[in-house]
């Protein structure tokens, strides 16, 4: 069962880019405190994203004629692994590079590709994805925000919520209802590219429990869009979104959200010289799990590299990976606090609490645990 998920290795040509991306990531991360680096996903640094673009680390999988570098998913794996491993700030370009660019390449027309892809690869424009609505979370097919045909294009009315990055982004790729009603479920949904600077768009940041404002509510009030805002086929939005989710769910980001904390904890243990059997067992357990999850993520990347859309496999890796990411702050917190006489550095303590507080989001973003497990169960033939 799931025989396609099998050990794979990163090709030497892709490994070869590691030193360069590591050096660049270090310029943004090496001077930062642990808790700042632990925010990697949420770290918004457009200048760093542009430097990544200039150095050729964005749009890696895009064709050269669109400003890309014609590398495979493995090259992107190496780049993401280095950025997250060091805790570099990736929020600005994250969605555009991971999802929007492949989506536009796969489903966009030539004019759309030429318009957006080179700018994404240069790190000049940033995207967010408009999926959730106040009444549509995991039940994504129930979206109500509409795009209606006009003489010149589309008119959008409605609201998105929990849109990561919206306050800083240039464009949203939104899943909208273009025909029928919520009862039609998957039918009648389309994806549109919305320029967030046009009249009628209001973005209201939502402060999170860690004090950050990375997600937002986005309101659309008679927002007029040109005809070419439609990406892909009208009514095919659900199919397109599903394909996109394989990109969203399979990457190394689904195992590394707590890795800065893990490394800081191990550095602490080395610093205080604690090496007893119980500590060794904890460290060994985390190391073994990280090693296997990384191999699983590479196995999933190999399916992407083979041209497949490994939706089930990606769900499987993401669910297991996020469980690991969530358990790390729990076990590290217990470990540190069960040794109350050890001095814990201020930034390690802040990083521990930051990761502890945001950890619930790990299994919400990109599809909840329950949704993913439903996908896996269907992949097992249960329905």
């Amino acid at each position: 069962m799931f025989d396609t998920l099998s050990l794979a290795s990163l090709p030497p040509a892709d490994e070869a880019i590691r030193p360069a991306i590591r050096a660049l990531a270090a310029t943004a991360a090496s001077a930062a405190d642990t808790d700042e680096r632990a925010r990697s996903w949420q770290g918004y640094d457009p200048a760093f994203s542009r430097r990544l673009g200039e150095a050729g680390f964005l749009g890696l999988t895009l064709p050269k004629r669109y400003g890309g570098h014609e590398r495979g998913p493995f090259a992107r794996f190496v780049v993401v692994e280095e950025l997250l491993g060091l805790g570099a700030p990736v929020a600005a370009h994250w969605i555009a590079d991971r999802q929007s660019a492949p989506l536009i390449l796969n489903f966009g027309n030539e004019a759309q590709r030429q318009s957006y892809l080179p700018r994404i690869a240069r790190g000049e424009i940033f995207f967010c994805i408009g999926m959730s609505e106040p009444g549509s979370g995991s039940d994504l097919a129930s979206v109500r925000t509409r795009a209606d045909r006009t003489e010149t294009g589309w008119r959008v009315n409605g609201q998105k919520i929990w849109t990561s990055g919206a306050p800083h982004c240039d464009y949203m790729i939104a899943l909208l209802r273009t025909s029928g009603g919520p009862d039609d479920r998957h039918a009648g949904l389309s994806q549109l590219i919305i320029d967030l600077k046009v009249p009628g768009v209001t973005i209201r940041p939502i402060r999170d429990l860690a004090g950050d404002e990375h997600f937002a509510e986005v309101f659309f009030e008679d927002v007029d869009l040109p005809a070419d805002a439609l990406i892909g086929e009208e009514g095919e939005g659900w199919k397109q979104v599903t394909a996109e989710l394989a990109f969203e769910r399979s990457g190394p980001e689904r195992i590394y959200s707590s890795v800065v904390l893990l490394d800081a904890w191990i550095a602490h243990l080395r610093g205080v010289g604690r090496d007893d059997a119980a500590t060794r067992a904890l460290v060994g357990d985390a190391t073994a799990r990280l090693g296997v999850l990384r191999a699983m993520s590479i196995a999933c990347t190999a399916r992407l590299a083979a041209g497949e859309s490994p939706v089930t496999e990606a769900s499987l890796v993401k669910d297991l990976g996020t469980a690991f990411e969530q358990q790390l702050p729990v076990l590290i917190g217990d470990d540190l606090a069960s040794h109350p006489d050890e001095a814990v550095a201020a930034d390690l303590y802040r990083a521990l609490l930051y990761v502890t507080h945001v950890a619930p989001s790990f299994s919400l973003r990109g599809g909840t645990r329950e949704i993913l497990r439903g996908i896996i169960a269907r992949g097992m033939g249960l329905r």
Partner: protein
Amino acid sequence: MNEFLEPFERMLEALSPPATVRAIEAGGSAAALWDGIAESGFLDALVPEDCGGAGLPLSEIGPLWQALGRHAVPLPVGETMLARTLLAAAPAAPAAPAGPIALAVADPGTAIVVPFGGVAHHVLLESGSQLYLVEADGEPTGVPGSLAARMRWDAPGGVSVGAAPPGGLRAVAAILRAALIAGAADRLTTMTAAYANERVQFGKPIGKQQALQQQMAVMAEDMVACRIAAQLGCAGGLPPSLAAAATAKSITSTAAPRLAATAHAIHGAIGISAEYDLQLYTRRLHEWRLADGSETYWNRLLGAARLGDARGSVDYVREMLA
């Protein structure tokens, strides 16, 4: 796809059906099964070509070991493949005996449980960093259906084979055990999914219940993690690195009780019954978890190595598991 896997799996299907597994577990003769496997030539699949074997890399042997687990083969086939390879590689070693060989690591005077010790003819024993080939002489564990045996050597005796492989025989055995667990996990997951689609309660197959689907999804995750962990264990060849052996056995041993628990939970009472095949695999999962070091045994060793290494965690797993 491994070209040897399909014929190997076909052979096991023919030679080691559940009825045969049960008969041997009940004390019946394993001679016919052993002869069939020995005649296939697979026992020397890992032995180097210049020593008369097929010289397959360990990464290609791993899938065969998983197949042994998938079929609950009631003989130390993987152990014998390893023992024959180690014997062939040792200059002063005796020729490999014809019968099944179990693996054991024991200090003098300490009684240990040897997997498949009850059906092995010989044991390749590591004692004091030296290997010895000794005749299998043990007592039943008293666990119903178990093929393991309790053994104790006051002095190693037997025939001296030479130095133990770097990292020890236990690390070698651990990756075999990880592969066996991965294979049994695959069979259990398939069986359990099929049962969930067949068993009707409340007017529909229980596999339609979301609560059950969520458990099955976790089972699939554990199963795939076991497979990848076993593959990682085998990827670097013999002898395995500490990181490879520890990762393989830690992950599979941690998952084994969860896999067995879910399989039983979904099957209900029939899964506990002797006549139903589920127990052939779940009993093995528990036994193999305990063999060659449990998850905490290997986690301690891996953790000690990790704490002594200044690299970041990503670099550590990337460079140590290759």
